[in-house]
């Protein structure tokens, strides 16, 4: 029930409605809970509402940190 699926915003209409695409499938969702979202953003969608913008910069930082932080020798 807490499942949220990433989608990309294609267009934004009035009334907080947006067309998004989930891996090939288009759907109209609401931006009422995420009014700052912009066309092109990847958002997580839950029960027809975008609830967060997936921040590519943060994703990159996590992955970079991960690559650096793994400085433990697996064999020791």
């Amino acid at each position, binding site marked *: 029930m807490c499942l949220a699926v990433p989608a990309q915003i294609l267009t934004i209409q009035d009334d907080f409605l947006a067309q998004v695409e989930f891996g090939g499938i288009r759907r109209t969702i609401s931006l009422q809970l995420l009014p700052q979202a912009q066309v092109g953003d990847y958002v997580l969608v*839950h029960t027809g509402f975008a*609830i967060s913008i997936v921040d590519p910069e943060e994703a990159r930082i996590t992955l970079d940190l991960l690559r650096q932080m793994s400085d433990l020798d697996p064999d020791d």
Partner: protein
Amino acid sequence: MLLDAFRDPQLARQILNDIHALADQPMTFMEFCGGHTHAIMQFGIRQLLPKGVRLLSGPGCPVCVTSQRDIDQAIALAQLPGVIIATFGDMVRVPGTSHTLQQAAAAGADVRIVYSPMDAVDLAAAHPDRQVIFLGVGFETTAPGVAASILQARARGLDNYAILSMHKYTPPGMRAILDAGEVRLDGVIGPGHVSIIIGLDGWRFLPRDYAMPVVIAGFEPVDILLAIRALVRQVARGQARAENAYSRSVTPQGNPAALAIMNQVFEPVDADWRGFGRIPTSGMGLRAEFRAYNAAVRFALPDVPSREPPGCRCGEMLRGVIEPRACPLFGRACTPERPQGPCMVSDEGACAAHFLYQDLSL
């Protein structure tokens, strides 16, 4: 795409190596969220961890923690004349004391499965001569959207839309487990999508009040392993901090627009949880201003004598006290096709997750 890296087996292996190197003592972590339970089972994460590192499933399955009485009342509402029940799919198969919503529908009740609470508002607009009641089940992830549906119904002047709020706040559920002291935990994997709404700040009470480490996790294998590694590291170092291993989606403060709408419509009330009983200020009740949209006020809820399914140990499962195998019905009388209790109905239920991914070989 960038996010595919969070499924990269090579990266997962590397984090696992770290976990094995860091885990210097036995430790037990609880994943609060049923979505995590599902992913942990699906990706076989338990089997990959060091022997001493145990994961326990928690109460983070909204349908599962809904009390038997609430389920019975929802089913009873469906039988009132002129009513359309709109609900998410999981609810229709949860066994009530005498039958399910699905069975009520087969006997003539009008029950519609919707993807979004907004679809329920559209149903109300399309059927002005009927009363549409949306069954509000879910945690902070779901409640803001349901709150938005009420604001929308009001803006559209619809007076035939109401919700039965069974929504719950997650932090009181976590507190209830720790206060009961039945399970010894060394850390908590924080729910990713709940935390999108309430933020990392919503979990700072764990280190502050319970000296309990908490790390928020996403739902890909790398996300979950990252959170486990962070927890193992805190325990090895004797720390207790609130950390965010899902920073691409979760911020410290959460989602302010969603919180504002949720708080505009709902207020904390005492609520009954399956397995826990009444937990103070853990439920979301509609504020007085919205009583016209409150199904519990608008309709006389019949007081059905409720009884949990005989033999079902869902309640203990939700408190982390037992694992699905401990239930004698698991995989025998109780399967996803013929669920006896809610923990086998919902994808987020521990019984369903164990049945689907691990324990087929009983």
